[in-house]
């Protein structure tokens, strides 16, 4: 991965030398009132390093890592697009970062205005009526959304306790449903990956609170019966929840609210370009139809006589979902990105995301057959060809070999309904040159597999480490120094 730098994985604690320090404070008169029996008895085992040691240690670690800035991530369902730098700079202005979350409203007018305006713009973009931007991740948003539905039914006096989730859904969907105290009803998708209306009808009962759907679904296929699904749900008194993970395919092109969706979440770290940070922080966001407004989490950001304020008095709210507001700095990044787009620019995100995905699919499907025979939306699901499978080649082998060529692996073995799935989402920000290079690499890997399958099964060959023993890690957990 990094020819000029020798990989070592010495831990910071192993580099520690007694008496070193990365930062010092001036301690004028250290008068303390803490009695001895309230103090810790032994020093914490933290490294002792100089500032330079620390900077070099972490900078070196940063090099033994893939990132969007350095590598293409064809990672289905994750929307690893470019993270614009204007978002980074403007979200770090001191006026934003130095603000305590319990500041008086009059001292927080700028940030409150942004949250208020972002809510309105996102509602307009998605055809929804009201919003909360408090959730700090997609799953946190899902949980918030499902609790809103639960509150809605409990206020109505209905004890509905089931949520329908198709088998192609993200793992967070059923996990969220059960966390909120619902029973998950898993339903099988039809062979084209869509929801089977007859199966749906059979499973819709007076107990059904919500249908959770991903649009487009995790096969990258638009749910063309979406209107009918929403009508069936509504006729049954149920609500429809849309997992917004794949919004990049729809943004500016259609408004999910028009389909009949009642609740949806957003992932700022996917569609709205905020960086993934190695797994977080993200930001969620829930959009709802008017009937669900009273149940949004508290506090609400409101405006009166030109001034913004936090309203804590929301009697029908589901309550608080996080102690202090939201991942505000992440929202500021998303807001800068939103400012950078008008209706046309939003639409071109979806168009180019769809174009790029279909280009990859069309270029690779001879060697890696696509699960679906239709044109895809923003991502496609491929599989190893029959001849590759006959050579004993698994999706994992292809994924690991891609690392050797400087491409992050696609999402693999998901959705669960596709055997040996290879899920590719190029996003709109990747150039045709990058896609071409990826396509020719996948083609090359196919011939390598045919000629020397063993070599693929041992891949990767050029990373700092070879394939790692996951069984050992789980059997004898070593999770700290």
């Amino acid at each position, binding site marked *: 991965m990094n020819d000029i730098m020798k990989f070592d994985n010495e831990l910071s604690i192993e580099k520690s030398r007694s008496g070193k320090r990365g930062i010092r404070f001036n301690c004028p008169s250290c008068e303390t009132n803490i009695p001895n029996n309230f103090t810790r008895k032994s020093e914490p085992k933290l490294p002792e390093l100089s500032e330079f040691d620390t900077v070099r240690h972490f900078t070196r670690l940063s090099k033994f890592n893939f990132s969007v800035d350095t590598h293409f991530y064809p990672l289905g369902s994750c929307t690893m697009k470019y993270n614009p730098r204007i978002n980074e700079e403007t979200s770090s202005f001191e006026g934003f970062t130095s603000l305590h979350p319990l500041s008086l409203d009059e001292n927080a007018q700028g940030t409150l205005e942004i949250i208020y305006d972002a809510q309105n713009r996102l509602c307009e973009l998605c055809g929804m009526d009201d919003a909360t931007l408090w959730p700090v991740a997609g799953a946190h948003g899902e949980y918030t959304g499902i609790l809103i539905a639960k509150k809605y039914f409990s206020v109505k006096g209905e004890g509905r306790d089931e949520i329908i989730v198709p088998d192609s859904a993200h793992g967070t969907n059923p996990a969220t449903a059960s966390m909120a105290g619902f029973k998950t009803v898993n339903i099988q998708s039809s062979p084209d990956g869509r929801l089977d209306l007859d199966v749906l009808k059979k499973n819709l009962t007076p107990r059904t609170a919500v249908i959770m759907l991903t649009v487009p679904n995790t096969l990258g296929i638009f749910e063309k019966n979406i209107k009918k699904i929403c009508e069936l749900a509504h006729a049954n008194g149920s609500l429809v929840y849309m997992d917004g993970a794949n919004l990049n395919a729809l943004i500016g092109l259609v408004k999910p609210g028009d389909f009949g969706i009642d609740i949806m979440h957003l992932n700022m770290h996917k569609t709205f370009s905020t960086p993934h940070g190695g797994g977080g922080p993200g930001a969620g966001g829930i959009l709802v139809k008017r009937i669900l407004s009273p149940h949004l989490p508290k506090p609400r950001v409101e405006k009166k006589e030109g001034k913004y304020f936090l309203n804590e008095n929301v009697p029908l709210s589901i309550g608080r979902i*996080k102690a202090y507001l939201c991942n505000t700095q992440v929202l500021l990044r998303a807001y800068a990105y939103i400012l950078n787009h008008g209706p046309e620019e939003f639409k071109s995100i979806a168009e180019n995301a769809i174009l790029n995905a279909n280009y990859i699919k069309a270029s690779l499907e001879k060697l890696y057959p696509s699960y679906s025979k239709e044109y895809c939306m923003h991502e496609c699901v491929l599989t190893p060809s029959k001849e590759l499978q006959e050579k004993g080649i698994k999706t994992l082998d292809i994924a690991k070999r891609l690392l050797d060529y400087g491409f992050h692996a696609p999402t693999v073995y998901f959705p669960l309904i596709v055997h040996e799935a290879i899920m590719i989402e190029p996003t709109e920000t990747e150039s045709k040159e990058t896609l071409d290079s990826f396509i020719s690499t996948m083609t090359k890997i196919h011939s390598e597999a045919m000629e020397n399958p063993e070599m693929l099964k041992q891949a990767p060959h050029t990373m700092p480490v070879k394939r790692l023993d996951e069984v050992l890690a789980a059997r004898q957990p070593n999770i700290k120094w």
Partner: protein
Amino acid sequence: MYISNTKQEKEEMLSAIGVKDFSELISSIPEEFLNPKISLPKALSEIEIYKKMRDLSDKNTVIKSFVGAGVYDHYTPSALKAIISRGEFLTAYTPYQAEASQGLLQTIYEYQSSMCALYEMDCSNASMYDGSTAFAEAVKACLRISGKKKILYSQGIDNRYIEVTRTYLADNKEFVFEMIPLKDGKLDITAAEKMMDSSTACIAVSNPNYFGVIEDIEAIGKKAAEKKILSICISDPFSLGILKTPGSCGFDFAVGEGQSLGLPMSYGGPYLGIFTSKKEYIRQMPGRICGLTKDKDGKRGFVLTLQAREQHIRRDKAASNICSNQALCALATTIYCSLLGPDGLKEACLINNSLAVKAAKELSKIKGVKLKYNQPFFNEFVIDLPLPASEIRRKVSSSFHIDPGLDLGHMGKEFENSLLVCLTETKDENDISLLKKAIEESI
């Protein structure tokens, strides 16, 4: 705006796909939904965005603030900011592809190690959203392990943490919350003992507590162990540079808000939920965990491990639905711990405490102002004013450009005149004089 395809490239791609026009690719979307009217302002250029964001940030008032209450104005070292803004960390994905993510995985291992060292606990996960959600998950773990329904919690816990926990329990009426009262600002251990019974799932305390008072967590931990009741301690990780640790007092779970380890306050986040436990509960931990292992050649390496607990494997049986966490914030606190080391953190704690002691002494000299509790505190304390604290706070803020602390009226009638004042290493003795003068003149 950030699209690289040229018009000509797009045509080449369409023709490679075998379609004449883009609309063929989206033929599965019903016509009626296409081309909706979207009423949004036109796109701004980069310069315009910069100016607009600058204007909006200027609408916030940058003010000398003595507000703490769980979120603290600590100094963020320059080296920390420089490292976490590196694109290699900032723009990386979750390290599922271990071979291509060794750098990031190692930082997670170092994070877990640092948190275990601070709290003196056996295991830490790779991070939760914030302190309140980490606490809620710890309560849920105790409910799962014990199979019991009653949650005993100290009045000294930030009420927002309790509200979030109720939300996390989906308002399920089976579970009972009982509050253990404080006595002169400290947990009433005798009352706590009486409230612990065979239906108790766990007892939860905060140290320092919401009012800044240092609790006798050793006695509380011991009592819980005697009664065989699971225990949770919320500790500010910064304070653990000097204060007694949850681990040494026998707590089963210890959680905290990691913001105090060098993250900016940023009006609510991103922060960091620290989640640690005894080793027997490792399989009850929510979220990602990084473990050390070997590669095929026997070389040391790191992977995400024990994934069978997580939503992408267990789906509706998972311990939690958490997926995205606060990885970059966890990295920031790891760097913070590396820069300060044990001695630096202790020194910073002493500065916080001595400034708070000094401020408490000075503010008590104001006529009509007195310390509410006669107890040792860490870096914040409560004073009672002769007037409602919310009035004084507004007055001081608008006339002196100082936020003097948090008015505690929301805690009940007896707190109407109470102000929670916090001091950290970003303040100095001169600031204490300014604060004193401002309050004096506003009464």
